[in-house]
């Protein structure tokens, strides 16, 4: 059994020491440096953070505070230098590159700031990509992606190219792509920053409605204070450290500054 399939199983995940406590992500003392010598920059300085199953956690803070680095470490696309970070009870730093790639493919969904939809693929083809990466046949993957597009309200736009869709619709396609393979962790990088307020609000409502669930965890990096209300908890980062963790409803727009 590959690491990806093994870890995909809730039973296996629940057996982990963090997962069994309802903790999906458990970071302790995570440190990350970029560069070396005199040009060495420390992006994360001993971050302690946990995210529970069923929780929508937002990472906020000023530019350069380390939130993108932290979400990259959590998503398994960047190696930390020190500390420990377990996702569903598994430590990425103990995995080979291939195992990490397989794990991400099976367990992580991504929503990017710039959508990152392939411009030459239709909406349904874009949304089907994670399934095709996992080896599912094109026909089956497209069928499932159509169903997912219908869930995000784009059932009639599956054949459209990204250039034929509005920004909000493109982000919905990106959300469908992030959810189509039913991952347990969804990481979003500034999902509303390219959208107007109303569209951003609708996208977040959609995320809340269909992405949040008892077996799934969402981590969103954002500057957009208008969407803080959708968070269960908000971790404010500054200078590579977690300054505070608070309930989403109680955080003002100042938190992002």
């Amino acid at each position, binding site marked *: 059994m590959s690491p990806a399939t093994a870890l995909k199983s809730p039973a296996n995940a629940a057996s982990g020491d963090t997962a069994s406590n309802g903790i999906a992500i458990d970071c302790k003392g995570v440190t990350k440096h970029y560069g070396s010598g005199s040009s060495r920059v420390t992006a994360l300085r001993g971050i302690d953070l946990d995210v529970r199953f069923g929780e929508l956690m937002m990472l906020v803070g000023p530019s350069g505070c380390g939130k*993108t680095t932290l979400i990259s470490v959590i998503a398994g696309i960047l190696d930390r230098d020190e500390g420990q970070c377990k996702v569903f009870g598994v430590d990425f730093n103990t995995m080979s590159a291939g195992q990490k790639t397989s794990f991400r493919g099976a367990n*992580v969904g991504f929503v990017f700031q710039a959508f990152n939809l392939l411009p030459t693929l239709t909406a349904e083809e874009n949304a089907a990509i994670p399934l095709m990466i996992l080896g599912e046949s094109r026909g089956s993957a497209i069928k499932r992606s159509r169903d997912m597009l219908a869930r995000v309200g784009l059932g009639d736009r599956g054949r459209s190219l990204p250039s034929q869709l509005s920004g909000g619709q493109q982000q919905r396609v990106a959300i469908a792509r992030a959810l189509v393979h039913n991952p347990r962790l969804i990481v979003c990088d500034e999902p509303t920053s390219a959208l107007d307020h109303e569209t951003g609000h609708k996208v977040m409502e959609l995320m809340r409605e269909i992405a949040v669930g008892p077996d799934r965890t969402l981590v969103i990096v954002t500057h957009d204070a208008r969407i803080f209300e959708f968070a269960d908890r908000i971790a404010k980062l500054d200078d590579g450290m977690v300054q505070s963790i608070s309930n989403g409803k109680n955080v003002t727009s100042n938190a992002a500054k």
Partner: protein
Amino acid sequence: MIRVALQMLVGDRLKYLGLIVGIAFASLLISQQASILVGLAHQTGSFVRDTSHADLWVMDSEVRFSQDSLSLSDNTLLRVRGIEGVQWAVPLYQGFLKAKLPDGTRMTAIVIGLDDATLIGGPPEMVQGSLADLRQDKAVIVDYNALESKFMMKRSGGRPIRVGDNLSINDQDARLVGTYRASQSFFWEPVIYTTYSRALQYAPRERKLMTYVMVKLKPDADVAKVAASIEAATGLKARTNDEFIALTRDYILKETGILINFGLAVGLGFIVGTLIAGQMLYNFTLDNLRHYGALKAMGAGNGTLVIMNLIQALTVGVLGYGIGLGLGSLLGQLVASAGLAFRMPWQVPVLCGVAILIICLIASALSITRVLKLEPAIVFKGG
């Protein structure tokens, strides 16, 4: 993911077409230049190929190619006829002589003298008259295809010579009694056939005038053994048709610089193709780096991305190769119909295909290296 790779490629129309055009250009250049080289090499053997009645050519040991007219003594013919395994042997004269058309147009022509009795060694196909007409007084025949060019009477309004016209060879009278059709020759000089004895009359006085002895073997004779026997008995060189063709081809390719020139052209096509395809494919990859990063983040392994990149390179490679080869063949037909050297045996498309494959692999190697080094974290750097 292969279809995704192809859709990524085809979707960027400008780069897609640019890549195909770049590789098609390389394919065209490589296939066309290689075919012209093969055509020229083939033409060097046209005289021997058209004169293939004999099994062996006996020549001076220092002869380097078929038009290298080094003379043999007359008794060579008798000595060769006496060697075991030889069915018959006839003399052949070949020399560069001065010729003058009826209107006074002068030229240097290759005069070939055929055995008077048998006329063995004559051209493969007669167009006007017959080969036996050479037995008429002062009779010569010329290449039909050269009438409009090499045998054009420029001093009298541009009329080609006709059967019945009188011309002179080394200031001695000759009369055109027919025309023949032969393979296109590498050598520019017009060719005039006559009988052996008349050719000796036209030729300047020399002690030795015979150029070749053409030898036919008995049905059960071993060609290698007879050739060795002739060489041992006469101290001359005896070569089969294929060996003589190869001797001529190799000498001309080496000594004239044709091989180097066309080799450079083929090499240039390869380099230009590699640079164009490499740069455009690399730019295509750079333009799609964020997408590759996203795919990597979403779980696409390096193997998948390498295959996607190779598929893209090979797709434009196959299309560019086909278009270039097709254009090369088309241009080849055009130049061949104009009498220029062009020959595309199966080895040329294979060579061209291998070259294009290498171009695609080199070009995609740059892109693959970039993709393999790509950190998927790039997708979280805004945009």
